[in-house]
């Protein structure tokens, strides 16, 4: 049992800190949910910088735009980003949507969606919960029904709640099909 980070991991921490000193103003103190307008624009810009270091999804295999970085180094990176309140807009794409598509998606879907995640261009959101299905998520009522080459997401008796992390300024065609990608198979 060894509770210390390795020499290599510590050196990496130093590298991350140095990057963050250059990329984030000293008085930056915003939490993710506070970002709007100018701070949101800064967040998008910052995420691009992170992407240019290959640090948006560092643990993913190289073929998916990652670096195949060891798990503990990824932990170090996450810690430093969180400590500096780094505004990373790629988080949902990297932690939820991306892995799901990598594991279950077909080649075409991977080609279409993965590069936009690792480049920091696409902001994803997550919509599982419905008004009557939060804790009891097995009670989800939303249905997608096959109709020719489409799925139609039907309206149920009650209106559905997809409580998503959609920000005013991320609404665009980009965010859209992602969410349904997950939902369409529910």
């Amino acid at each position, binding site marked *: 049992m060894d*509770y210390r980070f390795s020499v290599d991991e510590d050196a990496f921490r130093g590298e991350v800190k140095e990057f963050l000193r250059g990329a984030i103003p000293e008085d930056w*103190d915003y*939490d993710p*949910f*506070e970002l709007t307008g100018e701070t949101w624009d800064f967040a998008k810009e910052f995420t691009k910088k992170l992407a240019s270091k290959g640090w948006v999804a560092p643990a993913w295999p190289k073929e998916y735009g990652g670096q195949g970085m060891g*798990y*503990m180094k990824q*932990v170090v990176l*996450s*810690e430093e*980003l*969180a*400590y500096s*309140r780094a505004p990373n807009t790629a988080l949902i794409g990297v*932690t*939820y*949507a991306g*892995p*799901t*598509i990598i*594991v*279950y998606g077909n080649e*075409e*879907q991977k080609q279409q969606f993965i590069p936009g995640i690792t480049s920091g261009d696409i902001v994803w959101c997550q*919509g*599982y919960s419905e008004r009557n299905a*939060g*804790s009891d*998520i097995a009670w989800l009522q939303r249905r997608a029904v*096959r*109709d020719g080459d*489409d*799925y*139609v*997401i039907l*309206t149920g008796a009650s*209106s*559905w*709640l*997809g*409580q*998503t*992390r*959609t*920000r*005013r300024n991320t*609404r*665009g*065609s980009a*965010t*859209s*099909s992602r*969410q*349904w*990608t*997950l*939902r*369409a*198979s*529910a």
Partner: protein
Amino acid sequence: MDAPGISVRPLVNMAGEHVFNEIIFDNVRVPRKYLVGEENRGWYIGMTTLDFERSNISSAAQQRRTLEQLVEYVKEQGSGNKKHAHVNGAGNGVKPKLAELTIENEVGRYLSYRVASMQERGQIPNYESSAAKVYHSEYGQRLAGAGLKMMGLFGQLREGSKHARLRGRFARTYLTSVGSTIAAGTSEIQRGIIAQRGLGLSRI
């Protein structure tokens, strides 16, 4: 989000922030090529996605920063810097409270490291990540509450007031930290997971 049949209604949280929306689907058409995995396997795919959500390592680091900001605030109070003017109960309750919050922050960090080290070895955490989730989110509330109190009346002011301190961080997070114990599985649900999977207790 531009597809016909989608409408978006804002959900404003109790801190007055609008970062969530209710999305209503009304006969929205989605091309078949966007189906991920096989039809009617969505439940299992969805559960995979949630698993990734539960291994969050960032909370303890964010909270450590907040704690350090609070400690700085308290230190400056004694230094005659009028920028940070007031500490409630200085000298009495404050120091042990800050010490306690520091211990708790370390505990949270190690709970996260545990989850991380399991994942590094290819094990799949379940009740361990629930323990970290409950702990971080509830600690977030204790930290926000403690800071709010220490700052006295200043602590209650939000950004925008000229008397607000630390951009009104504690007044805001006192409100926003509540949602964290609900999001991604409530504290009750997490404790249920720990009881069943961790302790082997029956469901009811």
